[in-house]
């Protein structure tokens, strides 16, 4: 048995355990053991603000993705099979384009001379172009778009498992559509809501390319701190410490979520 799984174990060791171990090691060893890198995260303002902003943006993105994704998943679940395939295909299609391409596409839409501003000025709705990008707004819009499938798919999977006759039963027992939705469908779809939100929130915590391109340098998320520490200051230790804290945050979130629903559901195994 061990002989059979050992190649797989070796791959996991080489690709996951060793790099993460190396990451942790770098964050605490620099000419001897030191917690200096962690001390700076706790004490220095820029780190605090960046972590706070990252959580804020992630929360906002998660809420927006839920508000946009729930109706889409609901619709995909409610319509006949052919239509639901089409809806899901439209949700997943952008998935297959590079994140970079999508970020630039948003740039083309949102920038001062972009499609939206030009159109609004053509209609004379606005005099000055709106600041739609190079700020938190642009970051949030593009991130929501990119992460939306991670919300819609778990929601859809959960809704698919809600037996159709429960809603019929609700209706026959006197519940109007709103009442039946609030009392039956919504509660039964909550595991999907939790799974989708966890997925989007966690992915958003570590998002890099989109905030880098659309945040205009003012929206500094944690992943950008990592990159700056390496690129600008050659501080691998500091970068590793930030990455470790981020990793621990994600693990903590998964731990808390796992108290409520099986992680298999979040990770799409079931």
């Amino acid at each position, binding site marked *: 048995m061990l002989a059979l799984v050992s190649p797989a174990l070796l791959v996991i060791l080489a690709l996951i355990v060793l790099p993460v171990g190396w990451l942790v090691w770098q964050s605490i060893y620099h000419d001897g053991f030191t917690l200096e890198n962690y001390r700076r995260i706790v004490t220095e303002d820029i780190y605090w603000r960046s972590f706070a902003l990252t959580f804020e943006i992630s929360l906002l993105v998660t809420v927006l993705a839920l508000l946009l994704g729930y109706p889409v998943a609901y619709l995909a679940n409610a319509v006949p099979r052919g239509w639901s395939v089409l809806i899901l295909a439209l949700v997943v299609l952008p998935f297959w384009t590079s994140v970079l391409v999508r970020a630039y596409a948003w740039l083309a839409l949102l920038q001062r001379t972009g499609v939206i501003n030009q159109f609004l000025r053509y209609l004379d709705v606005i005099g000055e172009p709106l600041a739609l990008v190079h700020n938190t707004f642009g970051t949030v819009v593009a991130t929501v778009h990119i992460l939306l499938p991670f919300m819609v798919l778990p929601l859809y999977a959960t809704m698919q498992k809600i037996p159709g*006759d429960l809603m*019929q039963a*609700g209706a026959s027992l*006197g519940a109007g559509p709103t009442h039946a939705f609030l009392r039956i469908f919504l509660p039964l779809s909550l595991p999907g809501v939790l799974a989708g939100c966890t997925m989007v929130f966690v992915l958003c915590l570590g998002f890099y390319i989109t905030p880098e391109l659309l945040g205009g340098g003012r929206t500094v998320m944690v992943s950008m701190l990592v990159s700056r520490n390496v690129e600008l200051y050659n501080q691998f230790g500091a970068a590793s410490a930030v990455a470790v804290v981020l990793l621990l945050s994600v693990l903590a979130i998964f731990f808390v979520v796992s108290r409520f629903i099986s992680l298999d559901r979040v990770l799409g195994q079931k």
Partner: protein
Amino acid sequence: MDKRAESVEIRSASKAYGAVRALDDVSLNVGAGEFVSLLGPSGSGKTTLLGILGGFILPSSGSIFFGGRDVTWMPPHKRDIGVVFQNYALFPHMSVGENVAFPLRARRLPKAAWPEKVRAALAMVGLAGYEARGVAQLSGGQRQRVALARAMIFEPRLILMDEPLSALDKQLRESMQIELRTLHRRIGATIIYVTHDQREALTMSDRVAVMKDGRLIQIDEPARLHDHPANSFVASFIGEATLLPVRRVDACRVALGDAVLRSARPIPAEDALMLAVHSEKLLIDDGADDAARNRLTGTVTDVVYQGESLRIFLALADGTALSLRQPSHHEAHRRIPPVGGSLTVTLHPEDTIVVPKASA
């Protein structure tokens, strides 16, 4: 007429899915307080008809009346009917008590009145004190009862049931059938019950509607359905009958191969006729010289012991296979020859059922 019950009138209801006619021009009247079963094989349209009554399916044409009101276009939640679903459709995220109280909440009844009503409804189905249980903790039979309590708590004047007992084992199913009968008498509501089990339909119903390929073939009281089937499909579906092609001889006789059988019933005018021989109506000839009885002689090909009864398979001289049932007691055993022996059976003219052959 009972105030607690509602009459139902179905006027030439049809439902087409593309080219498939799931329901084909069905008209049916159900009296207030009546227990009517819709019986048929799968694909006969019985579930479609129930869906139309429940408001879950809109008919392609035709209309539905409850107690004289046209409800054809009324959404399900306004119809005020109790529905018991095949797999019970209990809400998994609610306790038994919350499930049963659901119709009260949906109707915005004052909360103070709920516990007493829930208690009474659960007591009615023999589940007193189960309020706090989770649905997942219940056995199939208990879920069934919760579904019943939930469908009855708001005292609907019409209850629809879609094969509610089909998931239960045989013994439980039979005891639930008797319970449902008793419950029906007590609450007095009209019940329309879908099943594919003819025994279940005969046991519980005031009348049974036999359906096939989306059409209503016959609706009658159980005894009439059994002994006066409208055609060979009903005869084959109800009871344990062997259907044999026969030729019309005259107004009261048919020919089965070389044998001529008398029937005390009018013989249908159709050309293609079938003789429906119920296995319990064939008797072993006791030698009494009763010329009125039809007699058939054959060779015993098998005797099957089935507990309370024996089933004896016979082959007539021309190879036609028949079977008869004998109660399993010593006297009956004694009269049955061993396999290969010759046996003469009688069929009373009153039991000689000749029906038109149903079109396939």
